[in-house]
């Protein structure tokens, strides 16, 4: 519907960025770089999809980075120490994440607490719990792991579209359908518009809140599994700060930080822009990788300023465009 403009700007930024990189490094524009971009940011794409739902609904989820860390440790210990089959471990951790997210959503709704506080507590809780389980990095050597990391769709030009990249693309696609084409998705936008009004319109606000945070935590768990494939290890310090990276991706993707507007495709582009900067730095070889953070910060600032400006314009020109009634 009306979600085009901010996403279009994100897309333009991405294309221009890619073109600039290609201008400097001729072999940048290859399927290899593109495929790596997807693989390296697969886990971020998955959490950011969940974060998109949360932010559009007017909330925030600070716990996702810790949930990823917890998941990698949980999965590693279950498989390596307890000998649990990987798929069973995955199912268990996803259920645990679902319960965790549901609990946060329920607390937010029932006690009418700010999501910021509740998920901040969730962040400490999940990180603390992963330290309790193990403080060391646990390598995972289950056969499934080597199978998955060997699997790839070969693209013309030498690129390898890995399993985890495919999982991420599938999550983004499913997320986009859920957000834009279902009642659930419409309710997410409604909540971001106004909680009170949504409740008066007869939408079950409480169960929606629970389900949204559940979705975010489950996707964080899935991102954790993907992360463990990526690193073939479980470590309690992994994915520190990823909650902020994903919030940045969502906002750069054109989603309104105050809720009510945004899109999943935009978020994917936001993730890719962050990946692009990182890849540029890798190509350059001399720059510190902290430049990623600096450029992301600048972009974030620019996008928030842009949104404010557009909101301002919309408000000025605003609500009296039409509705002239015939007498």
């Amino acid at each position, binding site marked *: *519907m*009306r979600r085009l403009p901010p996403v279009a700007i994100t897309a333009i930024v991405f294309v221009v960025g890619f073109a600039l990189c290609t201008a400097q490094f001729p072999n940048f524009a290859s399927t290899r770089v593109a495929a790596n971009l997807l693989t390296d940011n697969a886990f971020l794409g998955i959490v950011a999809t969940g974060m998109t739902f949360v932010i559009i609904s007017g909330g925030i989820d600070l716990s996702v980075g810790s949930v990823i860390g917890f998941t990698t440790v949980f999965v590693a210990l279950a498989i390596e120490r307890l000998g649990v089959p990987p798929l069973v471990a995955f199912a268990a951790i996803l259920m645990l994440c679902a319960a965790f997210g549901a609990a946060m959503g329920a607390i937010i709704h029932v006690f009418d607490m700010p999501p910021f506080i509740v998920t901040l507590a969730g962040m400490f809780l999940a990180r603390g719990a992963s330290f309790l389980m193990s403080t060391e990095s646990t390598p995972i050597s289950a056969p499934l792991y080597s199978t998955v990391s060997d699997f790839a769709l070969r693209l013309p030009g030498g690129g390898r579209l890995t399993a985890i990249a495919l999982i991420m693309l599938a999550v983004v696609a499913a997320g986009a*359908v859920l957000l834009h*084409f*279902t*009642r659930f998705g*419409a*309710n997410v*936008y*409604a909540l*971001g*518009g*106004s909680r009170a*009004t*949504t*409740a*008066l*319109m*007869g*939408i*079950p606000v409480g169960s929606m809140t629970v389900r949204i945070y559940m979705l975010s935590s489950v996707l964080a768990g899935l991102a954790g599994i993907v992360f463990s494939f990526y690193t073939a290890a479980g470590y309690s310090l992994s994915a520190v700060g990823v909650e902020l990276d994903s919030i940045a991706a969502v906002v750069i993707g054109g989603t309104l930080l105050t809720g*009510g*507007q945004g899109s999943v495709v935009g978020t994917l582009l936001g993730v890719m822009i962050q990946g692009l900067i990182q890849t540029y730095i890798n190509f350059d070889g001399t720059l510190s990788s902290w430049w990623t953070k600096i450029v992301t910060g600048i972009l974030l600032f620019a996008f928030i300023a842009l949104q404010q400006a557009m909101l301002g314009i*919309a408000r*000025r020109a*605003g*609500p*009296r*465009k*039409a*509705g*002239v*009634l*015939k*007498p």
Partner: protein
Amino acid sequence: MNAASDPGPALLEVRGLSKSFGTLRALQEVDFTLQAGEIHALLGENGAGKSTLIKAVTGVFPRDAGIVRLSGTEVALRSAKAAVDAGIATVYQEVNLLLNLSVAQNLYLGRQPTRFGLVREAEMRRNATALLAEFDLHIDVAEPLGTYSVAVQHIAAIARAVDQSARVLILDEPTASLDRHEVEILFAVMRKLATRGIGVVFVTHFLDQVYEICDRITVLRNGRLIGERKTDELPRIELIRMMLGRELAETTSERAAAQVRQAGELCARFEGYGKTGYVAPFDLALRRGEVVGLAGLLGSGRTETARLVFGAERADSGGATVDGKPVRLQSPRDAVAHGFGYCPEERKTEGIIADLTVRENIVLALQAKRGLAKPLSRSEQDEIAMRFIRLLDIRPPEPERPIGLLSGGNQQKVLLARWLATAPRVLVLDEPTRGIDVGAHAEIIRLIRELCDDGLALLVISSELDEIVTYSDRVIVLRDRSHIDELEGEAIDISNILAAIAASSTIGAEAG
């Protein structure tokens, strides 16, 4: 009382309903009975408890005591959703729907047509277009609701509820921002629903509308049931007495004869003032001690004119002078600096700050005008707040109550107080009596006259033609976003205004 002799169980029965907010007893042992197929007015002063009754019945507020029966079966509704599921659709007083969603999504939120779990967007839009067409509203339903005027938003809210009302339709002041034509359409729809056996509860402060459409009337006062009558057995005087608990001092809908006031000195003048695509250039002179009324249909450019005058919108042609000196009114700030005040129509969204107290809301504009360097002392604030609470009869008279907890009408009085407190030289009032009860209505009209006698220049917008006729010294008639006529003195009466609106029917040429 007479329930025993009734033929069958009523459609909706409320018995002994009580509800307190802290120490405030908003409803005490209220009974209410709605029969199938009737249109039932729920009346009372601002703060009488009408909205609270509706919310307690539909499960938005938990109730302290009392039962609700639907067709004889007791129901315990715990949320707005439960009420909708039980067949009770409601337009709450404060509902504005969701401005970020499309019109179609607003109409069908939570009940969109789906196939395999996916919303059928095209079908939903078709249905939405058809539904709004019943209300004679022809707009692009794929656009966000926020791009349309408040009136359109209200019609959308009503249309949604009408479409959902399986058994009962409750409308809490639905006509407050609609004009005659739309009200007529709404009434036609209400009648149609009633003949289908749906019970309609209708809250309003427009007594004419009550007598036009309602079969029965229930009156509340101070949270208590005063009585239930058939409309045709209840004379208007008696109804007002039931609502106010006293006689209304005077009838206000007569043009005061002594109104041939001396036009005071010129205060502000606008020449060729306009903005392309917004309002056609107009000339407007505001004199001290004079009320200029703006009349016209919804969307005719009344509010737009007010916003231009107040600098909320920038003019791109013409010029303005205040006291003979040319001024630039680029923003509301400029306007305030020149002694302008503006009480907007969209008080809900543009006006109140729900978490601040009544006192803080009242002194807000005055403080802003004085600048932060010169804070009002607490005792000054208390004094100002109490003065306006008394003057406008704001209830409950507690300056320290958060404004969000006041009834709709009392919130509006607070906003009016905010601008009066700044003692402006030019005051623009957009629909000053919307949602305000009969008693306070008379007070506000009296206040408008007094303000003028004190030398204020007033520009008042109202859809109530008899109201405009009552207090205006000049009336400007608008149509299709341009000023088309100006009536003065003896020429001001309702039929002349209507004639002016109708006469310039050059629609075809400009529409679209």
